[in-house]
């Protein structure tokens, strides 16, 4: 039996949208990689400066933006300072949007509690340059203010002064961060990525090259649970759950019809 593609697509549309409209609560179980990420950030001393690289663009925003918000809430609630940068030109405005939103909520000031370094092309070149001096890669912040004039940058020169780097990525930027910042400079890294990418980063987690991994909307929902602030990701869980069930049901239907057909063929 071959179900028409259009019927499958219609089912998908219904199963995704309905749970989003009628809000159903669903318990979220925190998985070890997310717990690790949370613990590592939770152990930081108040006043430490972390580097957050929002290496994703609009396409993967639905998965990665809720994660960005949850992490920022966690950091700001613990008075940890944040430096934002991106390896993609259009990753900066997305990160800025998230920063503006959360900073307002926690009453954080630009320049004192956080700063936006901006975007610089060159990926590996930038990562290596920041190993000796952040100011080599970013002499000024995104608005052109010299980093010297930002109180948050005082005593922050290179990876030695950044206890943890958080890379939220939709592509292979994490490979570069691990290859250069981690392997070369011993920078500790926590990563967040889309659900599809997550499996490919497990080897890094097992090898200790990254110390925590938040995968997809599910990971974001788990993080929201850890900081006790359920938001967009948590409310997306029922849709995702039902969607997975739909796929499972379709696979079962496909197999049943496959067996019936095979038996019919054998008889004839």
């Amino acid at each position: 039996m071959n179900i028409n593609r259009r019927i499958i697509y219609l089912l998908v549309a219904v199963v995704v949208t309905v749970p989003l409209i009628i809000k159903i609560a669903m318990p979220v179980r925190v998985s070890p990689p997310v717990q690790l990420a949370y613990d590592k950030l939770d152990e930081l001393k108040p006043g430490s400066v972390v580097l957050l690289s929002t290496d994703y663009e609009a396409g993967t925003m639905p998965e990665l933006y809720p994660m960005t918000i949850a992490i920022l809430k966690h950091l700001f609630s613990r008075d940890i300072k944040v430096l934002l940068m991106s390896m993609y030109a259009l990753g900066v405005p997305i990160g800025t949007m998230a920063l503006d939103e959360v900073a307002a909520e926690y009453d954080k000031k630009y320049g004192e509690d956080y700063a936006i370094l901006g975007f610089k092309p060159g990926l590996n070149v930038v990562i290596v340059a920041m190993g000796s001096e952040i100011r080599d890669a970013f002499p000024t912040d995104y608005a052109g203010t010299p980093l010297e004039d930002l109180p948050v940058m005082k005593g922050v020169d290179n990876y030695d002064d950044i206890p943890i780097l958080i890379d939220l990525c939709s592509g292979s930027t994490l490979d570069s961060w691990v290859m250069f910042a981690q392997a070369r400079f011993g920078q500790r890294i926590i990563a967040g990525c889309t659900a599809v990418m997550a499996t490919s980063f497990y080897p890094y987690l097992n090898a200790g090259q990254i110390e925590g991994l938040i995968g997809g909307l599910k990971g974001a929902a788990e993080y929201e649970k850890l900081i006790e602030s359920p938001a967009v990701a948590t409310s997306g869980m029922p849709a995702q759950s039902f969607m997975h069930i739909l796929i499972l049901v379709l696979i079962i239907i496909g197999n049943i019809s496959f067996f019936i057909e095979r038996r019919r063929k054998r008889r004839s």
Partner: protein
Amino acid sequence: MVFFFVLFFIPSVLLQSITNLTAFDTPNDAGGSITITWNVATELQTGGIVRYEIFRSKSASGGYENIGIALSNKTKYVDTSARDGMDYYYYVVAVSKEGETGKSGIFGPVSSTLQWFNTKRWNVLVILVFLIFAFFFYINLARKGIKTFIRKIPGLEALDDAVGRSTEMGKPILYIPGLWGLTNVTVLASLSILRRVAKKTAEYGARIMIPNANPLVMTATQEVVKEAYLEAGRPDLYNEKDIFFLTGDQFGYAAGCDGIIVREKPGAIFLLGVFAAESLILAETGNSIGAIQISGTTSTLQLPFFVASCDYTLIGEEMLAAASYLSGEPVMLGSLKGEDLAKIVMILLIIVGALLTTFGVVDITGLFSTG
């Protein structure tokens, strides 16, 4: 008495709070850098040190300048402003909210030099030399006329057939090289396969369309196709307008390619290159119009999607071996044999490493560190 003791004791702790100050030439670098490390009494570390200040001078007796600070959780500083060959002296001061709380002794003289070899990478050098040896050993054997057996790769065997069947149906051929640029070796492998596909296309007199996401790849694909048409003796059929730039934006590119697939209904679609999330969007659309699809990529994440939606998939190294496989030249095939030898050695190393680690010999992993 106790009071007296405390009064006397504290300052002495303060004075010796930073111990074992050492400065040395930073190893494996291009010079100009000295690493300074120190130890600190734990009671002081928990007792409110805000930062360390590092002082440097060219003479032991005086003229010290503050050259930088280290955070309270560090006991290391890398001075990158040293001049090679010049003697320096250092000391470190711990600073708390109240001010100076501890000071180290003076260490020196120390000077920086540049190094000719990164000693942490000797293991990579050994592996590299071995690989090059294996590579040329088999190439040499091939030159002497010893035949190399290579298993059939169905995806590559099907290339000509796909072009042929598409032409029979009177439909164009779509070749999608992915989003990545020429610096990626997989993209170069894709160009090798394109050469074969384009040559067949020219021989059959079919039409080939190549939407590009990278301008440099666009010029390369144009050159490769032009050359292949020339080789096939049909330069008249070459149409540069069919090999064009679409957009560098990931999903814009996917949308553009999907549009072409739906409008032009190609008979054969080749998805060969580096792909990300757009892989399934492209492959499922191709599948929905019933095109013969041959895909290949080194992006392990996208392989399951291609396997589910395409007729043939070149998995990882099959894609990289394509140029050698298609050329059939003994020398190129010989080089593949070299890779196999390296693979056997690697498997043996993994087994030995796993066994040794199981029996508690863990030092072996250090041999493979480039730390």
